Every structure is written in C-alpha cells, then in structure tokens.
C-alpha cells in the first residue's frame, strides 16, 4: 500500500528529465499562485530535513511534502500525472510545455488504517 503513485505518461517525462538532469526529487508546494503543484528538482537543489515527509518513491524519484501540509493531506492518496500547459515555478518540466499535476482521492477506511495507524 503506497500513498503515492504516478501515471505512465508522467513516468515518461520523469525519464526524460532524469536523462538530462540526473537524480531528481519531487516536492509538493503550497500557497499562492502556482502552489499545490508537485515540483521536480535536481536532487541537491533543495535542502530537505526532518520537516519534509517522505511519501514514497515514484519512477525512481522520492516524493516529499512539508510536514505541516502533510497533516492535512495524510488522508488522501495522490497520483502524479502530467498535462499540457505551463506552470510558473522552477520545476524542471516547465520548459517542455507540460507540467506535473496531482490527482487526489480520499483513502478508503482500510487504507487509512494501514497508512495512518495512530490517527
């Protein structure tokens, strides 16, 4: 049981970016403007620490989210997908004319019991 998944199309873009940039990470943003988008960066571009929750690995890329935000997201299952269009962040896919998006659905009771045992 995973918290996070990725579509095949999004995996293809991740592979393209890996070929160009090497090791990558996903970080879920929050806030103004283009917030709430999953962003992909070179592995060492972003400083991560214990306040970033590791949600899982998709297409060989670890996915992180800030702890504060995770508190509100932990009851949802996330799927990273790709769509046409242009975001406005430093995320590496933007020059390709596509952008990562996140689909979320509520975890089922069973899934929730498994993933958030203390909640």
């Amino acid at each position: 049981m995973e918290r996070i998944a990725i579509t095949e199309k999004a995996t293809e873009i991740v592979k393209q970016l890996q070929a160009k940039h090497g090791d990558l990470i996903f970080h879920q943003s929050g806030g103004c403007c283009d917030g709430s988008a999953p962003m992909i960066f070179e592995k060492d571009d972003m400083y991560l620490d214990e306040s970033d929750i590791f949600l899982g690995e998709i297409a060989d890329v670890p996915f992180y989210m800030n702890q504060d935000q995770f508190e509100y997201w932990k009851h949802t299952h996330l799927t990273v997908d790709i769509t046409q269009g242009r975001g406005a962040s430093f995320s590496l896919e933007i020059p390709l004319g596509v952008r990562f998006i996140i689909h979320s659905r509520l975890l089922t009771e069973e899934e929730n019991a498994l993933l958030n045992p203390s909640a």
Partner: protein
Amino acid sequence: MSYSKPIFKEKYDNFINGKFVAPIGGEYFDNTSPIDNSLIAKYPRSQKEDIELALDAANAAKEAWGNTSATERATLLNKVADIIEANLEEFALVETCDNGKPIRETMNADIPLSIDHWRYFASCIRSEEGTATELDANTLSMNIKEPLGVVGQIIPWNFPLLMLSWKLPPALATGNCVVLKPAEQTPSSATLLMEKIADVFPPGVINIVHGFGPEAGKPLASSSKVDKVAFTGETTTGQLIMQYASKNLNPVTMELGGKSPNIFFNSVMDADDAFLDKAIEGAVLFAFNQGEVCTCPSRILVQEDIYDQFIERVVARTKAIVQTSPYDMSCMVGAQASNDQYEKIQSYIKIGKEEGAKVLCGGDANKEGDFAKGFYIQPTILEGHNKMRVFQEEIFGPVVCVTKFKDEAEALEIANDTLYGLGAGVWTRDAHQLYQIPRAIKAGRVWVNCYHAYPAHAPFGGYKKSGFGRETHKMMMSHYRQTKNMLISYDKNKLGFF
C-alpha cells in the same frame, strides 16, 4: 460598454540596458489569452545568458543611479505615473486580455492603483530624512540610507502591472537598479510599460527579462550579481529562493499566499441596513479577481445564530454575479488566468465534494457557449469544516468555504488554524470586537468592516508561512536599503590607550 481584444505585435523582446533586445538563444514562447485561449504574441524564452546581460547592465548603472538626487528620482517616478495615466485604457485592455480579469477592474482598480503606487513612493523619497544623534558632547552618530545596488524581482500573474508597481517604485526610489522577471503567463503589461517609458530612466536602471522559472527565474534568484531578491509566489519556490540567497548572504522578502478567514459576528444582522448590505458584499468578495488574490477571503466564518439567514443572502448575492466577456463593463467575474489554474480549481472542487463539503452554489466550470473556449469557473460556495483540505489550501479561484462558530474563542481558533497568515476580515458592530479580534488574529493585514482595499499608504505582508517583509507603505523602502552609520568624533583629545 464593451471593448474588444487589443492589437499586439507578432513578438516582443526583453528590455535590457535601455533598449529592446532579442533573447541571445533566439527562442520565444507563445503567450495566450485565457479569455478565449487565442494567441497574444511571442515573448522571449530567456536563458541564463540573458539574465547575465541584464544583471551586467544593472550593475554598470547602479553607481550613477544610486547617486542621483531624491528629487530627480521622484520626478522620474511621477513621470511614469503620468504616462500610465495618460494611457490608462490601453493598459487596462492589455491587462484584461492577458490575465482574463474584468475590464471594469483593470480600469478602476489595477491600473489606477498602479499609478498611485508610483506617485506614493515618489512622495516618500522626497519627504523622508535620515537621522543624526548626538551621543555625547563630542560624538555624532549619523545614519544615512544607501541603496543595496541591484535587486532581482520575480512577480506573479494575478495583478501583473500592479505587482510590478508594488515592487519597482520602492526599489527605484531608494536608488537601486532592477532586473525584473514578469510571470510567463502575463508578460504583456510590463512590456507595454517599457515601450512607453523606454527613455525615462538611464539605461540599465530597469531591465525586464521574460522567460520560464527554471531557465530565467532561477539564474536571477541565485546570481551573486544581485544584492537582494523579492519574490511573490508559492512556498516551495520561496524556500528555494531563500536557499540561493543564503549562498550569497543576500536579504530576501517573500509573499507566499494565504487562506484568509473572513469573520462575521452576529451583530452584523442587528439591522437590515446599509452596513449589512456591505457585509454581504464583503463575504462575496471571495470572487473578486476570480479568487486569484493571495488574500482571497476564502474561508467565511459566521456566528451560528445568524448563520442560516446570513448565508442565504450571501448565496443569493453570489448567484447574482454576472459572468460574461471580461471585455464587457458588466462582467464581474472573468476567466481564470491560465489552464493550470482552471484545472487546479476544478480538482479542488472535486476534493471538496469527496471530503463531504456541501455545494451551496456553483460547483463546476462554466462551459456554456463562448465560455467553452476560455477558462471560466462558476463562483462556488462550499459548506464544511476547517479540517477539510479545501479549508486549508489556497485554491486561488472563485471558491469559498463556509463554516460556523459559536463564540469569539471558537472564531479565533478556526481563524488561526491555518498554515498562513496574510489577510483576514472582521465584521461586527461591537466596538470591543472591532479591536480585540483583529489583534488576536495571526495575520499581517486585518480588514475591519471592509475587505480587499490595498492603499499604497498601508503596509501589506504575511505572518507564518505567508512570508515576511512588507510591501506598499514607506516602511518597504527599508527592505531596499542599507544603513550607513557615520560615527564622528569632534574630540581633539586621544583616548589615552596607546
């Protein structure tokens, strides 16, 4: 009264060192209008080399510009204001076309407010003084304000010319040179401005470079050739920019969004009068600018004993919102600025429904007729509780979440239960609440019996994860300056140590 799409050139260039120059790599991107997804024009897809060119121009200009008199700088700022004012309708049309917002708002809010910010900072720089203190009979401490040098500014797409006018005038007034990257969704009004004011400032003082975040934004934010970075946007990019700044030991200011509570106490319904009418409008202001405002009052909290009657009137007022062509003066809510936003908002409405929020009105995109070509969302009211994701995350659309509270304590608990702290609204006829509730809300701007006013003369900025630093107001000038302290001794006698 209705307007039509303005005429654009086929392509535009960066403004560097006082003239328009093509991007070195020769690449451009298509900029489209969210009103009907039609092409506006091509804009430069700049790379690191273009940013370098702009930074070199700014660095070459900073010494002379930093030494101009306050009088001269103020005069030029006022000149810009006059030029925008003389072309107000043209700016308003370009802004509406590029961003999708109603023409009545660009005509009456975006552009006039932009003009006022240029004038405000022109007056600030003329009227302020440094300080001098006599520390003892022979020692004088003089504080002289000096510009930082070169400032990098990255601005968003929700109020393109206004955000530019929040950031450029204070930086210029205080004697800095600027490299500014507009959002790639809305490059048009910044370009139009440079066409109009190309000769106003010495070359290199203002440089506008277009492009995408990873290709142009990152090199600007991480360059050792900037002395400060100012950013408005989301939290992850904000964190990255702060990291880059830490490498250069540069100061930064951050404006990173919010999830602002708009609180209605039961006294608003003590009478059915002009004030109640104003309060209902205050609740419906969530739909202002299609909800694409960092301070969007996106959580309405209503005291439980008036909840049903109050919400009934808010829903009725929301249903009366006119959504039509943004070029039509009767349009109240236009198109979302991009397909990205359009899809994101719809996905949040879906999440809200899944989480059990009740849709009181709207609840979908508007795809009828001509709306199908652009990115329109019906003004939407969701009823639920504050732990839902739609109550916690910035949707940045015409979507508001409503909930009820019992008393002052619960109102404050819900209001402050958010990661952000940018704006808030408090509506009451109770004189004690008028003061005590705003003081207890952890947000940088609390509107009391009003909302969405942005005068140049009042400071704006966030608490908590909404960022730090202030914009608008003269205190903003301190974000763009160093203090030179001259400690002068008039004592002829030595210390006697050596």
